């Protein structure tokens, strides 16, 4: 996402993608049925694969979901005191149908949430985020922090590598054992943090000297893809979501 290169979701505005993500996540959570979640997940996988985003989003989602799923299975699959229909017992562990069902529905619901928002992440570019927030008149500081955090990671990683190399070149071989490692961490963390503090100081001066954080309204050089049709679509989508929620929770 940091170097968000194509493939992306065509010429969709990041806002449209975000809207769709919110609507999908909220609806599946509200319906709270493992079958719906599984269906939505399958649909999303097909959709993302067809636009070429699947290869990026799905592995990233898997990295998050596999330990999460294992944790749920471990917690509810083995120990679910509320469960009645016991399938298998082994010492203190009681595998129950209810426990497995609970783990599956929670896992699938979370998986939908993870996939839709990762799709948004891979679609949006940091600079677009800044431009969008500027357009909707949020404080410029917010756009700056979000965008900057996404773009400076490589520079900080490079700096950390330089510090590590510089320390090695001084003959500071990472010692063995906990003590040596802790010492190495301190030796490297201090110059890294200091350099970053120092750099942040220079950046603050430079931003201030260029009028950042002033009182006047900010404009944006960058244009974010959007269209009238998408705006209408977004409004309708959100209205539909609202109507659905009112119906769903009002009817009960």
């Amino acid at each position, binding site marked *: 996402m940091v170097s968000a290169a194509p493939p992306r979701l065509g010429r969709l505005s990041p806002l449209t993608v975000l809207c769709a993500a919110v609507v999908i996540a*909220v609806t599946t959570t*509200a*319906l*709270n049925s493992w079958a719906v979640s599984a269906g939505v997940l399958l649909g999303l996988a097909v959709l993302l694969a067809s636009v070429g985003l699947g290869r990026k989003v799905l592995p*990233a989602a898997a990295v*998050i979901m596999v*330990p*999460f799923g*294992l*944790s*749920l299975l*471990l*917690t*509810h699959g083995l*120990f679910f005191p*509320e*469960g009645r229909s016991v399938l298998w017992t082994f010492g*203190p*562990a009681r595998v129950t149908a209810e426990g497995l069902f*609970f*783990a599956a*529905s*929670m896992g699938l619901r*979370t998986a939908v949430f*993870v996939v839709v*928002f990762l799709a948004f*992440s891979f679609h949006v570019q940091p600079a677009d985020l800044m431009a969008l927030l500027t357009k909707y008149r*949020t*404080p410029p*500081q*917010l756009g*700056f*922090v*979000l965008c900057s*955090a*996404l773009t*400076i*990671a490589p520079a*900080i*990683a490079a700096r950390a590598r330089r510090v590590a190399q510089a320390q090695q070149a001084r003959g500071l071989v990472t010692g063995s054992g*906990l003590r040596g*490692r802790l010492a190495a*961490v*301190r030796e*490297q*963390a*201090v110059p890294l*943090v*200091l350099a*970053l*503090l*120092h*750099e*942040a100081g220079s*950046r603050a001066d430079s*931003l201030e000297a260029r009028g*950042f*954080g002033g*009182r006047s309204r900010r404009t944006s050089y960058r244009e974010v893809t959007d269209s009238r049709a998408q705006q209408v679509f977004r409004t309708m989508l959100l209205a539909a979501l609202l109507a659905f*929620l009112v119906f769903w929770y009002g009817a009960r």
Partner: protein
Amino acid sequence: MSSSSSLTLPAPGQADRRVRRLLEILGALAIAGTYLYLVLAQPADITNGLSSGSTLLALSGFLLGVVLLILGILPTLPTSTLVLIPVALVLNIVLGQFVGSTLVPFYLDAIGTVLIAVLAGPAAGAATGALSSIVWSLFNPTVLPFAAGAALIGFLAGLAARYGLFRRFYLAPVAGFVTGIFAGVFSAPIAAFVYGGTSGVATGAIVGAFRAMGDSLLTAITKQALLSDPMDKAIVFTVVAVLVYALPRRSTLRFPFVRRFRVLAGAKSS
């Protein structure tokens, strides 16, 4: 006269300040209200699944609160603090992974947040914590609901610094431990009601063990959080104390918060 000059700014407007304060208060209220609702309205029986309504309400309540807090706090921060926040967010990740590769059992993902809180105060700490979760959620959406908890950690760390707990080196881990207790109790209901469990295998095993002893899901997750969080935060606070005392005094004194509340031992107040 300078007051009529176009080169200078008029004194900051009262109305502006009031709006910001209002946003902060509303944000804090939204978070506290959501938390209370979650604890009070917790379902007695989870066999039918958690009510999807309380999940949605928890998510939107916390998110709204966090966004209000951020909108209230960010514009009041000086640029020199603001530029540190992205660095802190990346530090949360970089240092966390760096240390994580050498010492396995802890996450240490709040080092940047606590560092900002110590240098720039509770408000900046809270904003950093919240933003940290928001940015991290772009890579891992599951951390988004914990943004309010991360804000709480930043806020408490700032308070600890404000009241001199970083002036004595041995007090820092104590403050961290206490912060960890609050953080654990706060984030447990979120883990329980939004995800029905924890995201790591090791923590999942601990939750399972408590469940095997017959605890309810929320109790089990709370107990697990109280096992890991206080220790983790004690370490984080200690690491930050080591760092800030290794920094040259001029760098730390650049921060008005450090000067004003004499956050660090030996630092002159002004």
